[in-house]
């Protein structure tokens, strides 16, 4: 139901009189309905400065970003809404639809299946879910849970993306470079991943088996969440993640714009040494990715 002119005037007066008024939300919604997206965006951002945990405001801001074509920012806002309110149906729906639009089919499937359970009559969700079910079989995006990645997924340089495009990394050379890193004392694995979480080269051994594919799928999603957390806290561009367990240290860091490297070591290896090996992995990635070509 669209707002009446009297309502818009009242909300506008309330916001003008009290910048902390929650009337910013219906007013921003009314502006959006009128096609005044920029005004709605400004209002929503100002409102969130006063009410940073307002779930509906994050959801609306996501819609406004989508209206302006900024899908990544939109995704961030819906993700925040969902983090604040895990049962938020609309945010889950929008993330699912956005993932489908980006061709991230496994992630789309995960969100849309839940959304369809919550709103079975939503035709748009139903159609997108059908597409995601058709397409999800061959892809393993960053957000996929480990169970979605076959344990025996090959460390193939050709990332199995939607179009099956060949990877730019010469596989044999990359595999050699990253395997050489794992021969260092105490290093349990070194991986080169693309920005979608596909394993391009390397291995990561634990319990006598190569766990590279499973780790790659989950870790690359961690990168996205780290980027969002840093952005939200105004801590700048992400430079790396370090995770420690009683048995291991794992370092994930960016290698250029489109790739990541992950290095794991046994716990007795000093963290500084792990970071040095990660630096060498980044250098190797830079050489390999910068060189391009095919295997």
């Amino acid at each position, binding site marked *: 139901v669209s707002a009446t002119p009297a309502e818009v005037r009242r909300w506008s007066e309330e916001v003008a009189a009290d910048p902390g008024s929650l009337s910013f939300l219906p007013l921003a919604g009314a502006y959006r309905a009128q096609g005044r997206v920029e005004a709605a965006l400004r209002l929503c951002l100002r409102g969130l400065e006063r009410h940073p945990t307002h779930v509906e405001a994050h959801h609306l801001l996501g819609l406004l970003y989508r209206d302006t074509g900024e899908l990544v920012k939109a995704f961030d806002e819906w993700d925040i809404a969902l983090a*604040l309110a895990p049962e938020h149906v609309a945010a889950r729906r929008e993330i699912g639809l956005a993932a489908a639009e980006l061709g991230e089919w496994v992630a789309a499937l995960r969100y849309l299946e839940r959304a369809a359970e919550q709103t079975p009559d939503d035709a748009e969700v139903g159609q997108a879910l059908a597409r995601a079910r058709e397409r999800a079989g061959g892809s393993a995006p960053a957000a996929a849970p480990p169970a979605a990645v076959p344990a025996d997924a090959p460390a193939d340089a050709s990332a199995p993306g939607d179009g099956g495009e060949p990877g730019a990394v010469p596989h044999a050379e990359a595999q050699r470079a990253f395997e050489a890193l794992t021969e260092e004392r105490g290093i349990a694995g070194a991986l080169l991943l693309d920005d979608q979480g596909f394993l391009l080269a390397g291995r990561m051994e634990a319990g006598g088996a190569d766990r590279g594919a499973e780790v790659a799928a989950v870790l690359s999603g961690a990168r996205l969440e780290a980027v969002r957390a*840093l952005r939200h806290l105004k*801590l700048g*561009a992400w430079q790396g*993640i370090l995770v*420690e367990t009683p048995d291991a240290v794992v370092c994930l860091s960016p290698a250029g714009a489109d790739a990541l490297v992950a290095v794991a070591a046994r716990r007795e290896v000093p963290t500084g040494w792990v970071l040095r090996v990660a630096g060498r992995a980044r250098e190797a990635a830079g050489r390999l990715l910068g060189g391009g070509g095919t295997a």
Partner: protein
Amino acid sequence: VSAYRELLGRVNRINGVRGSMMVAAEDGLIVEEDLMVGVPGPAAAALVASLFRRARRSMQAAEFGSAAYLQVDGEDGLLFAAAPPELGDLLLVVIAERWVNVGMVRLEAARVAAAMG
């Protein structure tokens, strides 16, 4: 002043720390916080808890054990989440400047864990 608040106060006395929180790892809700003005606590708590859960899943997938410490490096600051067994389901989250003494933060995190145990 709660016991948590007192422990967070000790962490915050380290030069370069912008604030710290005790956060429930499973739902990202703040149990106690002591943050500088302008640091968006609830949203940050939710995001860090989600990131920590993912790191934990990743470590379990690799059979590396349970994640106990997470550090995210940003160009302008650092984010720490510590989950020693003494804290149960709680995370100690610390937000700091880029130049903070990481060793001091870790030491104080260990002291907090010991005090909780």
